[in-house]
């Protein structure tokens, strides 16, 4: 897109060498003198009163230094999530070590001991008296007025409904030539980052708390911990070391408060590292039931969209706003004069649902993009044409569709290939989108400092949390470009609330966008300071000056200039009694308009004898605005394809029908794609500048999450004529649908 020196370049990550040599220190590598090891006792029951917790014997076990339970833990209902909203009334419904457990895995006690073995032994010695209560796992059951209450201080198992409407859907359906209605079901998915949740907490003698946490929102965590512990924020410092993936599982306060409490009680540093099964159970993607109805005219114009949705929140309502994003995804994506959404977030005794990359888009995308294809077929309109006709704000989307269609060979679709052994091929298309940030409903702002060193190099201090997303590199590129410096001349400090300013956290594809706007603004601020100094020195107006390749010069008289580093050197030398520590600052709120659009194409091969679906190829073309670092952007999309191909075909949570416990809570049975399973992938970028983004960049990471599963579903339909409405599309489901179709044909 633009012509830049550092922005737009495929630069390797600044910390790549650290990671590839094994030197990078992650939270579980942190070791402090005298550190204790903690383990959490979790409820085996999905719903029970905790009558009595007897920790005496555990406390007496040699090597045990602190034990927590409802007997001594503070009864504080802190929002486990930073995600408090002005618009939606988020319930504060979670209290650690509560009087009641509401899902398998709910915390009942915790022990800090001299090593992991002693901690595990101590857990076995804790005696808990439970009074088991009836359970409900099905949101369609839990929503009934007669259903048992999971939170007794609420009148029903739901939060307030989300209702959005515009126009008159009844009239819209009457106007339509065709009306389609279908119910779609999407499963609970797990983030499954390779690093489990972990943290280390340590108090100093003055009562200052330092927490090393594998956490996506250090600033938010600092505030949550302060509130939970009754401390001023100035006494809480959160450090985020290298972080082994999050995908939403590490946005909320899952273990850090417990870790800090144990540290305070024992007077020693405490480390918690969750086992893989525990990490699987922390927060899940919302399973959803979406009943979607769509009306359209013969010419392809949409006249009405109506949706009724239930999301399974599980035991606590961490992120009820997923339902809102889902809603907007259904009714706000295409141009339609009459829309109505009615949705309920429902408590059940499943593990708590929460943020997972995509946050409502995978669910809404599957329903909407499947139905769009169904309608296109009904109208005998090409699926690409139909989408283009109805898309609300095209931007770069037409080019994405055109380029993707060519790359996949869209024309081949008319004659589906029938290979040997009963295998058939098909091609499907979808459109997808993501926003950048929270759309004004939650805390969403970012601050940055840029300081200049005496030698003219720069230091960016940013609240951005890099979890492998590359922000420590791309933000440096932005600052370097703004200041006319080389990439290596900009260093980045991040992930330490003691030394960097606030950022709301790594979620909603907002880090590059928001932290980038802030970094660029802070760089512009310090640039202005430098220009003022240089202006005085050169005897010109500051607005006459420009910086390029390390040189500050007059636009009118380019010969008149001084090196960037000369200016900073002079300012540092305190000559003539003048000195200036150049420090730029910025605090920005979300200007909006950071959204991104794209198109996904899938080619599948269906083995009609077994129902197995092989995804032969995924083509993804996304309008990312200015790609600050194309290699990083591609990597995000490619990773998203791995996750969402799993969502489409192989990843599912198999629950015990009696306890709701995840039976496949290990990597042997939770089927994320291996390198042998990954489809061939073709990712390319379109660059239509976002008006407010840093150098025109958009938020991009979550877009693909809404596109893959419906593209695969549409491709399966093209191949074998069956329409699957439930995820994941396992071989057994495909096989059954094929059998049913064959029977119907007889």
């Amino acid at each position: 897109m633009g012509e830049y020196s550092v922005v737009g370049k495929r630069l390797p990550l600044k910390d790549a060498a650290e990671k590839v040599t094994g030197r990078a220190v992650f939270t579980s590598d942190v070791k402090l003198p005298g550190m204790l090891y903690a383990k959490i006792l979790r409820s085996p029951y999905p719903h029970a009163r905790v009558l009595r917790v007897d920790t005496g014997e555990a406390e007496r076990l040699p090597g045990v230094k602190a034990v927590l339970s409802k007997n001594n833990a503070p009864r504080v209902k802190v929002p486990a999530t930073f995600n408090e909203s002005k618009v939606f009334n988020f319930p504060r419904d979670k209290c650690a070590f509560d009087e009641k457990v509401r899902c398998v895995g709910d915390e009942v006690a915790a022990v800090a001991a001299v090593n992991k073995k002693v901690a595990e032994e101590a857990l076995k010695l804790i005696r808990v008296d439970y009074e088991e209560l009836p359970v409900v796992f099905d949101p369609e059951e839990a929503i009934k007025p007669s259903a048992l209450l999971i939170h007794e201080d609420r009148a029903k198992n739901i939060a307030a409904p989300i209702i959005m409407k515009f126009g008159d859907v009844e009239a819209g359906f009457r106007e339509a030539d065709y009306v389609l209605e279908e119910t779609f079901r999407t499963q609970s998915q797990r983030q499954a980052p390779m690093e489990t949740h972990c943290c280390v907490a340590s108090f100093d003698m003055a009562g200052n708390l330092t927490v090393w946490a594998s956490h996506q929102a250090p600033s938010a965590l600092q505030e949550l911990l302060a509130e939970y512990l009754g401390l001023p924020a100035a006494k809480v410092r959160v450090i985020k070391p290298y972080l082994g993936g999050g995908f939403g599982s590490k946005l909320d306060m899952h273990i850090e408060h417990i870790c800090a409490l144990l540290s305070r009680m024992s007077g020693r540093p405490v480390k918690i590292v969750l086992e893989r099964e525990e990490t699987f159970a922390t927060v899940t993607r919302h399973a959803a039931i979406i009943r979607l109805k769509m009306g359209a005219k013969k010419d392809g114009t949409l006249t009405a969209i109506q949706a009724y949705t239930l999301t399974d929140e599980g035991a606590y309502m961490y992120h009820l706003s997923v339902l809102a994003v889902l809603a907007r995804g259904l009714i706000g994506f295409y141009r339609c004069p009459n829309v109505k959404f009615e949705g309920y977030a429902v408590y059940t005794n499943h593990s708590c649902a929460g943020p997972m990359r995509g946050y409502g888009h995978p669910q809404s995308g599957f329903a909407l993009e499947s139905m769009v294809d169904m309608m296109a077929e009904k109208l005998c309109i090409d699926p690409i044409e139909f989408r283009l006709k109805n898309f609300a704000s095209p931007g770069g989307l037409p080019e994405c569709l055109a380029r993707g269609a060519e790359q996949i060979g869209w024309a081949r679709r008319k004659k589906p290939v029938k290979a040997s052994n009963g295998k058939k091929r098909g091609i499907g298309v979808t459109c997808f989108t993501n926003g950048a940030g929270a759309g004004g409903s939650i805390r969403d702002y970012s601050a940055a400092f840029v300081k200049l060193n005496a030698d003219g190099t720069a230091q960016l201090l940013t609240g951005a949390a890099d979890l492998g997303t590359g922000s420590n590199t791309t933000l440096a590129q932005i600052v370097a470009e703004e200041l006319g410096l080389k990439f290596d001349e900009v260093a980045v400090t991040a992930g330490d609330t003691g030394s960097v300013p606030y950022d709301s956290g790594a979620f909603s594809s907002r880090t590059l966008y928001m932290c980038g706007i802030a970094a660029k603004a802070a760089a512009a601020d310090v640039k202005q300071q430098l220009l003022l100094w240089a202006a005085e020195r050169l005897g010109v107006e500051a607005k006459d000056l420009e910086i390029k390749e390390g040189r500050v010069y007059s636009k009118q008289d380019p010969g008149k200039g001084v090196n960037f580093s000369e200016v900073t050197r002079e300012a540092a030398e305190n000559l003539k009694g003048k000195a200036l520590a150049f420090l730029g600052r910025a605090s920005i709120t979300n200007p909006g308009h950071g959204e991104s659009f794209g198109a996904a194409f899938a080619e599948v091969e269906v083995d009609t004898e077994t129902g197995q679906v092989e995804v032969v190829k995924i083509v993804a073309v996304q309008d990312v605005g200015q790609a600050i670092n194309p290699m990083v952007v591609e990597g995000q999309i490619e990773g998203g394809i791995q996750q969402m191909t799993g969502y489409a075909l192989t990843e599912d949570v198999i629950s015990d029908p009696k306890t709701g416990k995840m039976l496949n809570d290990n990597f042997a049975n939770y089927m994320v794609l291996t390198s042998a399973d990954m489809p061939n992938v073709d990712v390319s970028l379109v660059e239509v500048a976002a008006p407010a983004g840093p150098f025109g960049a958009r938020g991009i990471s979550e877009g693909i999450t809404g596109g893959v599963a419906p593209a695969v579903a549409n491709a399966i339909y093209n191949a074998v004529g069956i329409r699957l409405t439930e995820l994941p599309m396992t071989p057994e489901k495909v096989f059954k649908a094929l059998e049913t179709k064959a029977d119907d044909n007889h």
Partner: protein
Amino acid sequence: MGKRLVTMTVNGETAEVAVEPSAMLIDVLRDELGLIGVKDACGRGECGTCTVILDGKVVNSCITPAMKAIGKEVWTIEGLDRQLGKLHPIQEAFIEYGAIQCGFCTPGMVLSAKALLDENANPTEQEVRVALSGNLCRCTGYVKIINAVLAAARRVKG
């Protein structure tokens, strides 16, 4: 119970370590020898994150008894650049091709790639996929990892 002193060769150097008979190799490498590049992600040999090279073959160190390494050669990620005095071509390729995001799977992934190239200097893409199929990654989708390994193969050959 009680630890005993055993000898193994780790990253090219003789190491005398105190080992519990029931310890897993990952515990000894991380806790006794400070080799934090060996990462623990599942504890059950189901994800390959803890991969090390033992006696020339990749194994999951989280389910390998430490005792199995007595008198044998163990290579962790730290050994690669320490031995060469610079980055191994596979490591360079990983950096250059953007094959690293969060970095948690990276040490195990690089070692599996190394074991492949040591045995098969000219692998096909399919052979690379199979060689890495025991190493899970949740960030990259494997695309740039596979490209990096193929590029490294070309460099090591040339």
